[in-house]
């Protein structure tokens, strides 16, 4: 379909030249290179059907002679590189050059060309398929934590919301296959309803704003992509299984795909079940969960110029929340905090899920079509629909625990047209418009005043992006305008109850400019500047009442205006010799009308006692920090990785720190790999360490209890791959919190009630066929 169709995870195949040949005398040759054009010697090029392989020479060249015409699967592997598989219909003498990603980038996070179609100059990080397969037990948030500068806000280990450069929830855009995830994002105890195992790649743009997307977006974007279907007529796929010792959880994930000239399909399904997790000293009673997800992708090429893909995904979970974390008032919270062990702790593990618990279902249906006008111009059309159902159950009196305390239904419709134009002078234009309609409904008969009001929102947006590549310089710029009309119905909390209606219009303007410069090979500098804005959310405007989870009365403010931010990022990437790779990404974000919950002096008396009052207010604020990543390759076998993230935020009007920003943290890894011959390959051993420092940039009166102390965790990982005929089995053993360290994390809301989880041994198997 053209180079734009190359999937994000498949490595770039440089060029294919076809020469003359004869029957069973066909020659296949080419060069294997490291990404960046260094030839790779001793790379193994293996043709599965022929069960024969050759090694590349000193200059990276390889050659097969006397091959019969036919269809072949070719595997290219090299020590320290992720092996790739390529399907080829061989009819004549053929030259193919392969490019492999070198290991030091894969150790951690890779910058991938494909994703950069979203941004030429912003900092993009990706978790590769290999990494995803190594940690199938993790949810999306926890997987993303592998990227420097990404943390998670948790409620226990099961609910985790990604935080990128301090932005989360309504300030962070999460895209599931190009569609802005639309769910209940307003609370800290709601995690994105996406199964990461359906993804071929998970990426983060740690940038100033990706303006082609509609949705609240104050800088960073998380992308979950299910990838394209390989053009391979044979049935391929993978089967994954994992076991976790902590919680005795089990899970399976299964994928099948098939590609033809004109159509292809892929299905993916995941089942997970877990019992109560445990800290080093006790069980976290009622933290069991179960999850069932599935997705299906159907691609159809109607003609050379028109193709469509239909994507459906469903995510369903039922998860328990620590029983001891449901509190009625401040006294309960205080006594919970003073206890060694939470109330209601049982002596044995259980798979039962009782209230407090959450039941969440999320479905997405999307149809995307691409219409090529010619080589340089094409249109994208997308229509999508999302359904989000969330029910939260609390422990209630008189058998009402079976009745949700909160029951929300959200429906979102989305339509988009994008026009792409590549000019002859290496410029690229992208113009487009979007519509999104959202309807949020409280399902009646919870018997409780809803915290989040009903609303109907309609949002229209237009954008224009431009980018241009010179020899060493890339430039980009973009503009975006959004209009939103939101009609809201709240219920008063004064008596008699009445419905209050609001009708608001919002205008948002955004722009970004950026540049990337390559001083020498492997010495890059990126700079971006962006102005973005976000509309106040319904909870910020209208919530009014007791937020049980946080033991406080939250008061919205209907007069809040748009939050605006200017962010700049500067990143430097440099190789010091061939052994050391350094990357530093710094950012500074300034906010006007930053919306935050400000604790008030007053306490409000209720029949449950006095509660602190938090009001949504606006202020000027700044958030800044840096992410440092460095990898070192001592020799063929030993390598190391270091990541350090620093972040700090200030409320400039009130001269106070901003709460709920990640603690500074340091992660290191020491890797040892043994090249193996024959059936076994890539035995890798890793010792890792993580230090999360105490959040000291916070005032005492900003939280109920002081932030937890610094903690250090040690982990171990071993992985190996084994060829089984044409197929491959990867096995990973991972031990987290090796020494069963007792700790609590600042961003985990469960820290008020219990320690974090203890040692966890995970076994993950990934069978690829």
């Amino acid at each position, binding site marked *: 379909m053209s180079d734009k169709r190359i999937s994000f995870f498949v490595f770039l195949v440089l060029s294919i030249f076809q020469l003359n040949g004869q029957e069973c005398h066909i020659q296949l040759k080419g060069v294997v290179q490291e990404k960046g054009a260094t030839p790779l010697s001793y790379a193994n090029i293996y043709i599965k059907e022929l069960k024969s392989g050759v090694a590349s020479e000193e200059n990276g060249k390889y050659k097969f002679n006397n091959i019969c015409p036919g269809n072949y699967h070719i595997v290219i592997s090299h020590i320290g590189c992720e092996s790739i598989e390529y399907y080829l219909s061989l009819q004549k003498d053929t030259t193919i050059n392969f490019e492999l990603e070198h290991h030091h980038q894969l150790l951690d996070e890779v910058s991938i060309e494909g994703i950069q179609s979203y941004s030429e100059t912003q900092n993009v990080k990706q978790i590769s398929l290999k990494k995803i397969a190594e940690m199938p037990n993790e949810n999306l948030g926890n997987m993303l934590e592998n990227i420097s500068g990404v943390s998670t806000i948790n409620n226990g280990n099961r609910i985790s919301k990604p935080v990128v450069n301090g932005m989360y929830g309504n300030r962070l855009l999460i895209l599931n296959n190009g569609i802005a995830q639309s769910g209940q994002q307003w609370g800290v105890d709601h995690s994105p309803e996406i199964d990461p195992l359906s993804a071929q790649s998970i990426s983060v743009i740690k940038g100033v704003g990706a303006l082609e997307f509609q949705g609240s977006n104050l800088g960073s974007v998380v992308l979950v992509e299910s990838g394209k279907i390989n053009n391979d007529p044979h049935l391929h796929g993978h089967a994954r299984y994992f076991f976790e010792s902590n919680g005795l959880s089990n899970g399976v994930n299964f994928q099948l795909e098939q590609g033809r000239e004109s159509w292809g399909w892929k299905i993916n399904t995941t089942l997970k079940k877990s019992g109560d997790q445990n800290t080093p000293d006790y069980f976290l009673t009622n933290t069991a969960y179960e999850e069932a997800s599935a997705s299906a992708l159907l691609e159809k090429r109607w003609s050379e110029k028109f193709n469509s893909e239909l994507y459906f995904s469903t995510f369903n979970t039922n998860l328990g929340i620590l029983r001891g974390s449901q509190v009625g008032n401040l006294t309960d919270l205080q006594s919970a905090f003073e206890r060694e062990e939470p109330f209601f702790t049982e002596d044995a593990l259980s798979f039962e899920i009782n209230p407090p618990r959450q039941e969440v279902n999320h479905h997405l249906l999307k149809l995307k079509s691409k219409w090529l006008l010619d080589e340089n111009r094409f249109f994208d059309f997308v229509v999508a629909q999302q359904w989000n159902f969330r029910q939260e159950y609390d422990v209630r009196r008189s058998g009402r625990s079976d009745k949700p305390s909160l029951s929300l239904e959200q429906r979102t419709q989305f339509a988009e047209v994008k026009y792409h134009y590549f000019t002859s002078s290496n410029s690229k234009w992208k113009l487009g418009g979007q519509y999104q309609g959202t309807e949020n409904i409280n399902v009646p008969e919870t*018997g409780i005043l809803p915290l989040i009001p009903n609303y109907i929102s309609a949002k229209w947006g237009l954008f224009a992006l431009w980018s241009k590549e010179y020899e060493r310089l890339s430039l980009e710029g973009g503009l975006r305008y959004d209009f939103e009309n939101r009609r809201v119905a709240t219920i008063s909390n004064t008596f008699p109850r009445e419905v209050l209606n609001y009708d608001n219009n919002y205008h948002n303007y955004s722009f970004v400019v950026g540049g990337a410069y390559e001083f020498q090979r492997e010495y890059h500098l990126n700079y971006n500047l962006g102005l973005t804005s976000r509309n106040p959310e319904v909870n910020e405007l209208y919530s009014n009442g*007791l937020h049980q989870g946080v033991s406080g009365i939250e008061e919205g403010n209907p007069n809040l205006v748009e939050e605006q931010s200017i962010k700049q990022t500067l990143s430097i990437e440099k190789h010091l010799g061939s052994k050391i790779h350094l990357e530093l990404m710094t950012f500074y974000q300034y906010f006007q009308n930053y919306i935050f919950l400000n604790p008030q002096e007053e306490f409000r008396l209720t029949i449950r006692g006095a509660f602190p009052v938090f009001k949504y207010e606006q202020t000027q604020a700044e958030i800044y920090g840096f992410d440092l990543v460095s990898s070192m390759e001592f020799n063929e076998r030993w390598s190391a990785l270091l990541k350090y993230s620093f972040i700090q935020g200030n409320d400039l009007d009130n001269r106070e720190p901003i709460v709920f920003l990640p603690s500074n943290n340091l992660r290191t890894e020491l890797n040892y790999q043994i090249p193996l011959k024959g059936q076994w390959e890539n035995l890798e051993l890793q010792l890792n360490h993580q230090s999360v420092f105490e959040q000291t940039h916070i005032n005492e009166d900003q939280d109920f209890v002081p932030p937890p102390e610094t903690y250090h965790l040690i982990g171990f990982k071993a992985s190996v791959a084994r060829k089984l005929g044409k197929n491959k089995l990867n096995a990973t053993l991972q031990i987290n919190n090796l020494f069963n360290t007792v700790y609590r994390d600042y961003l985990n809301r469960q820290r008020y009630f219990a320690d974090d989880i203890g040692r966890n041994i995970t076994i993950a198997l990934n069978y690829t066929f």
Partner: protein
Amino acid sequence: MMKKINYALLISILVLSFSACEDDDDDVLAPPIPNEEEVITTLRFILTPDSGGQVASFIFQDLDGDGGNIPVITFDTLNANTSYTASVQFLNELENPAEDITVEVKEEDLEHQVFYDTDLSGLTITYLDQDPNGNPLGVDTKAETTSPESGTLTITLRHEPNKDAPGVSNGDITNAGGETDIEVSFPIVVR
């Protein structure tokens, strides 16, 4: 070619038509007002002197529930060296007629306990009622006063306390756990 595009458009329409099964805007913007049957608006603690005489009432009333207007607290004085039979009552006055939540609490007596905590050295409150396990519930109590003094009385209703924890059956809340459904404090004067 055009036929195929039409086919694709047809699918687009199909996808969008899922949105056809939508509620009316009016339904979204005119939500029904929930029936808040679980809310407790009012606590009444009524003490009747065993020897006859004036009944003492302590009332906490928050008619619109949490938030909204501030609660109204009514308090009273007790006589020194007097024995009272006391009972506590919980009401939901959002309902009309008011719903007596005490009934629910008595039905689920295994899962509830009322605690009385005071800094008056001469005031003792003892449980008169029991759940089927022989542990106290605390709706009906006996209150005895000694010398004149003044201070605070805090009444707490706990849901799902651990009644077997040390001290709990004697009315000590420290190890009780569970969730607080009610916690109100009254100024109290003995004269």
